[in-house]
């Protein structure tokens, strides 16, 4: 059985995917952050967390994308113009976050496929939560002054 990429390589795939998605969608660069102060995270209010399952033969995992609500609002403004939200949903920011997670996960799935572990995606699930105190999971990235976290986990499962 082809070994899965190690943890740091999975996080690198996630970071690369995030950078590409944000560059294409928002024309905004994202840079990896070495250390985030709690004050910065708290100032951003509620977070939206999108989880997208990775489903493959003998392999399963997930991509988790955590973004501040304020960043989601900004992204909606860029993508949808003034007014910033679609007309047909009760939770436009949740929908946008789910779609961002979907796009990032799609690129991670493609990278896993190239490493011998093709995966398909589950449907995104989105929840809201206060910023996680202490050391939340995932690699922090900075985009437009906001802290975004991406976490990729993947493991062999019994067949």
């Amino acid at each position: 059985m082809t070994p899965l990429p190690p943890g740091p390589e999975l996080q690198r795939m996630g970071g690369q995917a995030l950078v590409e998605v944000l560059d294409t969608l928002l024309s905004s660069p994202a840079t990896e952050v070495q250390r985030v102060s709690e004050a910065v995270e708290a100032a951003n209010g509620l977070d939206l967390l999108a989880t997208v399952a990775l489903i493959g033969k003998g392999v399963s995992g997930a991509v988790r994308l955590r973004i501040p609500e304020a960043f989601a609002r900004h992204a909606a403004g860029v993508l949808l113009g003034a007014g910033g939200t679609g007309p047909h949903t009760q939770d436009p920011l949740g929908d946008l976050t789910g779609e961002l997670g979907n796009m990032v996960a799609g690129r991670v799935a493609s990278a896993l496929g190239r490493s011998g572990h093709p995966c398909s995606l589950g449907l995104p699930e989105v929840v809201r939560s206060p910023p996680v105190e202490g050391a939340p999971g995932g690699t922090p990235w900075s985009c437009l002054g906001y802290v975004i976290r991406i976490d990729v986990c993947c493991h062999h499962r019994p067949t």
Partner: protein
Amino acid sequence: MTPTILSIDDSTTIRSVLARLFRPFECELCEAANGEEGLAVAALKRPDLILLDYNMPVMDGIAMLRRLREDPVLKRTPVIMLTAESGFENMATVARLGVRDYITKPFRDEQLLAKVGRIVPLVPRAGTGTSIGPTLPPT
């Protein structure tokens, strides 16, 4: 004649992005949130092009495409697949189902417009701007 484009995606964000993208052009844009709705709208509107998401609840893009190809009226409708998943196996499957083109999400506006323009002519509203398409009326 004004072309009709049907966008089928469970994400309201994507459907809103597409609505914004096509608003400057002379075309009718219809929407559906999953494959099942998409088949119903397609039967009603007979679109000139379908922009179809791959991964959706209720009925996903592949299942919808299979049903579309079985419909004697709709089976030749051109389809462009919009997908976050660009793995080889997925692309081989959609190619076998006769998808005209595919585009990976996220996409740049000009990239999608160019692909759409190869299938249906995109004429700017009020005669301003640049037409996109294989056979273009004078602007």
